[in-house]
């Protein structure tokens, strides 16, 4: 083989590679570099190399609280997405033809609407003068409105709604690979429907649940629109804090350091979760 033909794959992948470098790698590296700069009230961003920003974030209980809140929200949203999304996918999988498509559309429909619009919809629903509170008060179940706006509960509910399609889709994909007869086989061997579910179906759709929860976890941890609209300025998460540092206090280096820390935390949590599940359900991944 000549050297010329050997080069061909590289030339062919060059456009995609350039796009990847230009649109993804360069901004990431620049953000990383920015996080080592320092910030001065009068001089603005000063180039240099110091770990001061990281020290500040890691040492300040204010930031600890924001990171912990983000982690807690991500865990809650992921947990409820598994709890609701996996059975939803299973029921959908078992439905017959016309209803299957209709329900699939209903689940995927929200993905076609901007996340901001969907979140504003939730604001209308759960506000203290929102439909839910007005209705509950009118029937006389509650006297004072339930506080959902600007609370973790409200943000979590809205995020579950926004992210559940990702869980349903990935569990659905692994259900497609499951031989429908294994359930009959389990039943014929004397297992109750519950045992069939626990011992046969769930272990085999674990890859779908895993990839679904990784997507949901990562998207919750970096979610911006929903926490900023429903959580407001008081209920800060990491993403909204980064935004405020960049556009509010104009301390770009600190914002960049927080962003880098969020990325690192996300990668660490997701890879260790992945390893744990893969070891536990090794055979389902083959």
């Amino acid at each position, binding site marked *: 083989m000549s050297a010329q033909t050997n080069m061909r794959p590289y030339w062919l992948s060059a456009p995609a590679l350039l796009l990847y470098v230009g649109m993804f790698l360069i901004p990431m590296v620049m953000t990383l570099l920015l996080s080592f700069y320092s910030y001065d009230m009068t001089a603005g961003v000063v180039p240099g190399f110091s770990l001061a920003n990281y020290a500040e974030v890691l040492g300040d209980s204010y930031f600890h609280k924001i990171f912990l809140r983000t982690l807690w929200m991500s865990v809650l949203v992921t947990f409820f997405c598994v709890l609701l999304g996996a059975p939803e996918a299973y029921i959908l999988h078992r439905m017959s033809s016309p209803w299957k498509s209709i329900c699939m559309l209903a689940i995927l429909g929200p993905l076609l609407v901007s996340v901001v619009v969907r979140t504003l919809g939730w604001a209308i629903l759960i506000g203290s003068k929102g439909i839910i509170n007005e209705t509950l008060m009118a029937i006389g179940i509650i006297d004072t409105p339930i506080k959902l706006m600007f609370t973790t509960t409200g943000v979590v509910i809205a995020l579950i709604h926004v992210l559940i399609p990702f869980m349903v889709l990935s569990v659905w994909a692994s259900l497609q690979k499951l031989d429908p007869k*294994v359930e009959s086989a389990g*039943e014929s*061997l004397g297992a109750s429907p519950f045992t069939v579910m626990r011992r046969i179906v769930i272990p*085999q759709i674990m890859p779908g649940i895993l990839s679904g929860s990784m997507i949901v976890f990562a998207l919750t941890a970096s979610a911006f629109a929903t926490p900023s609209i429903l959580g407001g300025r008081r209920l800060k998460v990491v993403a909204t804090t980064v935004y405020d540092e960049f556009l509010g206090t104009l301390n770009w280096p600190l914002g960049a350091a927080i962003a880098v820390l969020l990325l690192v935390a996300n990668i660490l949590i997701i890879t260790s979760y992945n390893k744990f599940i893969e070891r536990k359900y090794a*055979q389902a991944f083959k």
Partner: protein
Amino acid sequence: MSFLRLDGLVKKFGDFTAVERIDLDVEKGEFISLLGPSGCGKTTTLQMIAGFVDPTEGRIFINDVDVTRVKPSKRNLGIVFQSYALFHHMTVADNVAFGLEMRNIPKQERDERVRETLELVHLDQFSHRYPRELSGGQQQRVALARALVIRPEVLLLDEPLSALDAKIREDMQIELRAIQRKLGTTTILVTHDQSEAMAMSDRIAVMHEGRLAQVDRPYEAYERPSDSFVTKFLGKSNMFDGTGKGSSDGLGAIDVAGVEFLVRDVDIENGALVHVSVRPEKIRLIEAGKGRIDGTVTAQIFLGDQWVFQIETSLGAFDVVTQNTGGHQVGEGTTVGLDWSPEEVRVLARAVAK
């Protein structure tokens, strides 16, 4: 009293009748095949016995107990599925042990029975492997072991060999039959492959359009088919429409487009509308002019152990099969005589178009 009894089973899906009134008695230890083309209702029948499909009408008895409304998990049947439906996240041993675990059999006895059953299907070396690491034939054995280990009342086999290639399939047929004989488990096999059904079963139940066309021992069904569908489904046949011409001296005569077919020991009414059929292997090729009819060889196919000829005659194309006993060469384009004895001709009533 029969061991498994299907009593007037009917299954309708909306307007479509999948199974139309099936009555079948299966003896204890018997191996019976439900045989038919796809869509004949054989799989639906099996599903009803297994309990995955509720019959619209009729009842199912196992050992004199009415199980028609009993859940599949309580019927104690062993089922081997076409796709095997193995649990891919469990080892071979765990797959086989699953049914025993569900029956709360103590671990020690469980292990013992799993080992015995895996030995029976020659998989004792593979108990710690996972199903995906095994070949198709081995997976099939795991599925069989998993169904047999629970000592089922009835073993149901849903086209279990159709995913295997021809050579392994033949070996498995013999082995499956041997295992079934050894354990004496009443077995129902669903298949569309007539040679598989004939090779393995004590009796075959040929199904056609939701009904049982004939239930008989394989030899009887092949030699004495009850109608033209069974004749064609159980093998090749040269079948023609004819008209009766009466009978004398124990020989019935039938006219087929000017050619006379004689039939041994059959009374034929003059003018009766009938089908006559002769199996290809019952026809002898002899010198032209000396047989019952002459024809021209249009194709000859060599299959190793036998020759298959297509011969064009005044009645249409004849299929003829002869054993490759050596030295028998005819050659395409040759005119030959076709001969058969009256004992080999079958006569079936022909439905008259109304």
